[in-house]
């Protein structure tokens, strides 16, 4: 015994005291599903690519993004960004400008010439894709990356589908579209233009294809019967927009009326204005709040001087004069005729009443089910005919570019599994990272970056792109507004706030681990985690 006076025990560290035994609940790290990812029709991992963009690693961000969507520069222009509608940041100040960062990444990739990694192996399987629109291109990209040989048969003279023949240049410049399509074909995808598939089963047999993905879109403008005099000029919006891609610009006259209330109606009216119409009027049978068109597009159209005539239906057209009946909404919100008529002077009438699918390639194919003019598909995107899958506007769904890209990806996964004789099983979805699971205190106040807009005068006369992009400084700022909902962004909060020093920091990119020897289960880490990436679960006692 060589202890000092009155001391009988050796000094020890409290590390011998395993306070973890006090615990009734234990914290665990979780990855919850960010609302943006949940809302994305293309299934992008938005939170993850924003995480890389935040640190200025734009290439990794772009590569993460393009795992799910090969068309970011297109998306960053034409997507209606449901992600931003779901963004938790909207409940703090304003939603993160996801769409503008996506465009920045897409444009940066084009500028730097980033390309996709070629497939590692060749499977020897052949897949025929009909239609080079967003859905077909997305499926081609995903299947090619998995090593399958891909041939796209496109009826038109150019690839792009509705992205080229439906979306005006002032929203999607064609050099951007061409660059992103070329990147996909450079992967080794064979693209056959001007080759319409007349019967799918014949084409499959002739080309020895193992599977087919149909994505022919909906290119036939719906017509309504409008009594018209012989000199009346009536055309449909789809034909109008398609003809903008040709040599000769359509002649519409000085006064143009567009009939319909969807995004295509707006595109047609804005195109007419740019072609020199002094008056471009949209006639719609209901009211603005019931219009299917997106509000920001209506707003942009109004800024450009497009006029709107609500609660009106067109009854007949004679040379230079339209007869319009006023409508009234009934208690259910349906427009009812009033019997009051008025006239509108016009040189041409553009019908934007929706689109139908040309299903002629499916004639005589057994097993197919067609309902309401579209092809029915299973949850795995397969039609009633084994080995033939379909997606995009020709199957029942919302008709947007992003949904189409999502269909292409989803179908590709199922086609790939099917070609291997398996079934694709989607990974289990994580719990949604709703705002109540977050701690918003830790996010600094930061208003959204506003994208520059082309001045109105130039928007009324040219087809220059209306909305500008972000540069690097404000794209970085915008990316950093992301809250990283439900996914650890290594803020060190848990590591810092633990009163028991029971969180182990594993180093950059490796996140953290709990030291359950000492964790007392107080729950401070879970409460103070900004992004809701820690969950308390009851301890088994």
């Amino acid at each position, binding site marked *: 015994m060589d202890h000092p006076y009155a*001391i009988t*025990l*050796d*000094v*020890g*560290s*409290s*590390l*011998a*005291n*395993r*306070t973890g035994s*006090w615990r009734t609940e234990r914290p665990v790290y979780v990855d919850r599903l960010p609302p943006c990812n949940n809302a994305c029709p293309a299934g992008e991992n938005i939170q993850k690519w924003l995480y890389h963009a*935040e*640190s*200025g690693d734009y290439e990794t961000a772009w590569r993460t993004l393009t795992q799910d969507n090969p068309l970011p520069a297109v998306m960053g222009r034409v997507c209606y960004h449901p992600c931003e509608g779901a963004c938790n940041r909207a409940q703090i100040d304003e939603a993160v400008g996801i769409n503008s960062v996506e465009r920045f990444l897409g444009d940066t990739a084009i500028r730097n010439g980033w390309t996709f990694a070629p497939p590692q192996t060749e499977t020897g399987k052949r897949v025929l894709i009909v239609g080079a629109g967003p859905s077909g291109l997305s499926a081609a990209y995903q299947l090619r990356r998995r090593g399958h040989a891909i041939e796209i048969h496109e009826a038109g003279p150019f690839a792009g589908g509705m992205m080229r023949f439906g979306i005006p240049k002032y929203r999607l410049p064609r050099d951007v579209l061409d660059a992103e399509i070329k990147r996909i074909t450079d992967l080794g995808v064979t693209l056959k233009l001007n080759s319409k598939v007349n019967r799918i089963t014949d084409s499959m047999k002739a080309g020895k294809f193992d599977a087919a993905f149909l994505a022919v879109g909906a290119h036939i403008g719906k017509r309504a019967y409008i009594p018209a005099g012989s000199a009346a000029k009536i055309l449909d919006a789809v034909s109008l927009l398609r003809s903008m891609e040709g040599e000769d610009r359509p002649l519409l006259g000085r006064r143009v009326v567009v009939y319909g209330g969807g995004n295509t109606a707006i595109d047609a009216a804005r195109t007419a204005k740019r072609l020199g119409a002094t008056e471009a009027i949209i006639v719609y049978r209901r009211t603005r709040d019931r219009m299917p068109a997106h509000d920001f597009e209506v707003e942009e159209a109004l800024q450009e001087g497009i006029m709107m005539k609500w609660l009106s239906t067109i009854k007949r057209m004679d040379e230079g004069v339209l007869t319009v009946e006023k409508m009234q909404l009934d208690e259910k919100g349906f427009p009812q005729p009033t019997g009051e008529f008025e006239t509108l002077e016009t040189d041409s009438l553009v019908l934007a009443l929706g689109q139908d699918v040309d299903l002629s390639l499916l004639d005589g194919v057994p097993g197919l089910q067609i309902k309401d003019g579209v092809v029915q598909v299973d949850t795995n995107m397969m039609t009633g005919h084994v080995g033939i899958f379909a997606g995009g506007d020709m199957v029942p769904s919302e008709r947007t570019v992003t949904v189409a890209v999502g269909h292409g990806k989803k179908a590709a996964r199922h086609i790939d599994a099917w070609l291997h004789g398996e079934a694709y099983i989607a990974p289990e979805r994580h719990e949604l990272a709703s705002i109540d699971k977050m701690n918003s*205190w*830790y*996010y*600094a*106040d*930061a208003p959204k970056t506003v994208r520059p807009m082309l001045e109105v005068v130039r928007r009324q006369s040219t087809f220059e792109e209306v909305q500008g992009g972000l540069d*690097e*400084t404000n794209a*970085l*700022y915008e990316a*950093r*507004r*992301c*809250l*990283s909902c439900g996914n650890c*962004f*290594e*803020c*060190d*909060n848990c*590591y*810092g*706030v*633990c*009163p*028991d*020093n*029971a969180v182990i*920091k594993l*180093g*950059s990119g490796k996140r953290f681990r709990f*030291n359950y*020897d*000492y964790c*007392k*289960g*107080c*729950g*401070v880490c*879970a*409460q*103070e985690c*900004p992004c809701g990436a820690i969950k*308390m679960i009851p301890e088994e006692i």
Partner: protein
Amino acid sequence: MDATQKLHFYQKGTFTVGNRLVSEEQRSVQASTDRSNALTCGHRACQGCGEALGARYAMDAAMRATGGNVIAVNATGCLEVFTTPYPETSWQTPWLHSLFGNAAAVATGVAAAMRVKGRHEVRALAQGGDGGTTDIGFGCLSGMFERNDDVLYICYDNEAYMNTGVQRSSATPPAARTATTPAMGPQPGNVFGTGKNVPKIAVAHGIPYVATATVADLHDLERKVIKAMGIHGARYLHIHVPCPLGWGAASHDTIRLARLAVECGLFPVFEAEHGVVTGCRKIRRQVPVEEYLRPQRRFAHLFTEAGKERIRHLQALADRNIAEYHLVDAEGDG
């Protein structure tokens, strides 16, 4: 610094402990894997103890500021009891305990001894709870202040004698229920108009540096400790540390309560040099006092018809702090 670091907006790193987007030097001490963990694991503080957290924050910052040359003197109290049940210690730094009331005087002695030995790099730090500081050790503390001894004294204020069973101290707020101020009778809880404001008393001594801080604002707390260690002479830091047990609050709400105390105005965060208040931390998202009071069972008796008047009284105290320290300004504190 590269382009990513020149930006002023670190949306995720402004208030969090760390920030992967800035260099190591710019991050907090607590974000570092090299932090000294002066108060390490295995201590016997309750779940969610604010004092254990505050003590590690402050000591680690002091260790960083001095290159590890700190001797700590501890008053009797929770911090002493839960870290050093014989023969174990949770302290990874020289540490000594003498009596309940003499921590300031012992630290003065430590500083003197180091000076005599020529160990000028070794700094003395005294620490205690509100009982050991504002009541029992107050005479020694005031003496250390008026002599301007080279000691940083840190008071971890959890607003009562928690270790012995939640008895009232002179830092217990009005209306709070404690074992000795039960929620009964015409004036339930601690009596309005009693107690003392030791940070203000410290300022009145005209010592080089006085500051208040909370466990809810780590960056502010660390900055103040590091600043204090850069000054010689008497310094006082008063850290608000919620006590889940004594306050009757959920263990996971410790930091949240510390934050609400500041945001409602009841705990003003300020600093003063040589007797003059030089700065305050503005309220960022102001809340009524009810938001701070409601999660604490010690204030449960206020949430009755009869309690409304006393809540108004507490709000008036918060409003007085807001006016006195200019805690709210028109532009806010982004």
